[in-house]
């Protein structure tokens, strides 16, 4: 059974469907990249996948349970879209943010040695151990992304869901960030991410899904670049989007 099964899912805001009869399975260990124009329902689909929204029709099954009532919060690591904009006034330190990864497992009561070790290991794994006592709002965009990844690692998440994680991150940090994702994926973590940069996502993802309300393509990156799915999804304006970034 797939780790995540989306079958015939439709979701609308009011009477405007943003996700229309989409079916897609994510196998354990997969690295799935979503591409598609702005407003194509990528974020909504990602939110449906991790249970933040309930489908109008169809079903999403995550770890064997309906996603929206899933009790597997500790197995999901989510990196939201606007991480890079975390308010600079927020006094929360990197370590405090990473400790939150343990909260689904220990909502009250003292942290055990295992909890603290998980936090330390996660900080070291993404190489921000030296930033642990900095305020998270004062980090650069790339460092902040790593802190959120560390939070997911501290939680021992099996699934990492990222919504345009490298918006506002410089090119060099972006490469390093994708290298990290690549390594984590090889270590067994399933990754689903939205990325506007088609070049970078086709380089790193093992599967590509091209979305514009409906699913236009789902398959490996090599096939994707040879098809017209992108042009179809973007309505023939993909070159414009390409050069935009």
């Amino acid at each position: 059974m797939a780790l995540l099964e989306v079958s015939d899912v439709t979701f609308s805001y009011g009477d405007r469907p943003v996700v229309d009869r989409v079916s897609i399975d994510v196998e354990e260990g997969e690295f799935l990249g979503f591409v598609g124009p702005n407003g194509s329902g990528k974020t909504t689909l990602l939110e449906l996948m991790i249970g933040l929204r309930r489908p109008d029709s169809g079903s999403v099954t995550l770890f064997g349970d309906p996603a929206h009532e899933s009790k597997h919060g500790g197995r999901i690591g989510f990196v939201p879209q606007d991480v890079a904009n975390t308010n600079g006034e927020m006094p929360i330190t990197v370590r405090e943010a990473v400790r939150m990864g343990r909260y689904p497992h220990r909502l009250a009561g003292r942290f055990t040695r295992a909890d603290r070790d998980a936090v330390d290991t996660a900080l070291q794994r993404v190489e921000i151990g030296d930033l642990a006592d900095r305020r998270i709002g004062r980090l650069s965009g790339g460092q902040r992304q790593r802190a959120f990844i560390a939070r997911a690692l501290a939680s021992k998440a099996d699934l990492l869901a990222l919504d345009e994680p490298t918006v506002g991150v410089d090119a060099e940090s972006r490469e390093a960030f994708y290298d990290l994702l690549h390594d984590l994926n090889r270590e067994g973590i399933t990754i689903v991410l939205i990325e506007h940069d088609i070049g970078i996502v086709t380089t790193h993802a093992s599967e590509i899904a091209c979305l514009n309300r409906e699913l236009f393509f789902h398959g490996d990156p090599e096939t994707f670049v040879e098809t017209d799915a992108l042009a179809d999804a973007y309505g023939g304006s993909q070159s414009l989007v390409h050069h935009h970034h």
Partner: protein
Amino acid sequence: MATLLPSGPATPSVFGQVGSVDGILRFVLDDVWGAGLDVLAGLTGVDMLASPFMQRAYLAALCIAVIGPLVGSFLVHREMAMIGDTLAHSAFAGVAAGLFVNATLSVTVAPLLTALLVAAVAALLVQTLVDYAGAYRDTSLAIVLTGSFAVGSVLVTATDGGIAVGINAYLFGSLATVSRTNAAILLVMGVVVTAAVTLAYRPLVYVTFDEVGARAAGLTVTRYNRLLAVLTAVVVVGAMQIMGVILVAAMLVIPVAAATSVRGFKRSIGAAVCAGLLATTTGVTLSYLYDIAAGGTIVLVAIGIYAAAKAGVRARRYVSRRRRTPDTAVSAATAAKPDGGDDE
């Protein structure tokens, strides 16, 4: 606690329980707090500390200084600072309702109790409006704020004007409203709020930092949002006696704002409580010495602390910058920023 009890016959078990709570409160108020300040007055020679009136005022100041910033820290960092003001105005409607009932019907209810009830309902209403009606957060706050003040003003004028006098004390706050009963209520509120925040600290801080992430992690965010709203209502009603409806939101916001440059969320709460303590005790003392409004004095002292804290941070940043590289201070500072220059 006498006014809290229903005037009708009560069952013995209820009496027994209230009696034991009353006993604990009497012990804390008289034997611990009162006696402690008496000793302090004897040691320092400050007579003010020995007066029961000021002892109650200082106790209230202490409670407000703890619970205001404690709850306010979660509000300010979620950019919900104005919810305190909204709930204060709904608490005003509650006070008016209590006084109205007292004036027109032959029952006695403590206005603080009706204030708490109405503010808690308003808190849940605001959350529901935001959650389900899809209203903008500040729009729903504005609707509930003006709506409850409207209810309050209608109730105040619906009687012959007799309660308009009583309402003034609640609008502007006064040390005189801190009766023994009210001090006891405030103490209980303080303990309840502190216990609730301590128990729910982790989910509250998660939701404050990253609400969507908290939902993805399986936390029931709505529940903690409601808890925070109701705790805010409790704080507002408790602090209202001294601060007044119009100024009470200040204790949720200003000490927290003064402490934002402290690194770490827990430490920043601690610093905010310290700022609050300094503001309330100084404010109450000045208010007594110069016979000026306690609420206003406390807010002005708090703003002074805020300004001093901000100026201190800026001065320290300036000094450390100059010390590091006297010649290229500006370029070093700008270069340090992208990799996460910490301004603290």
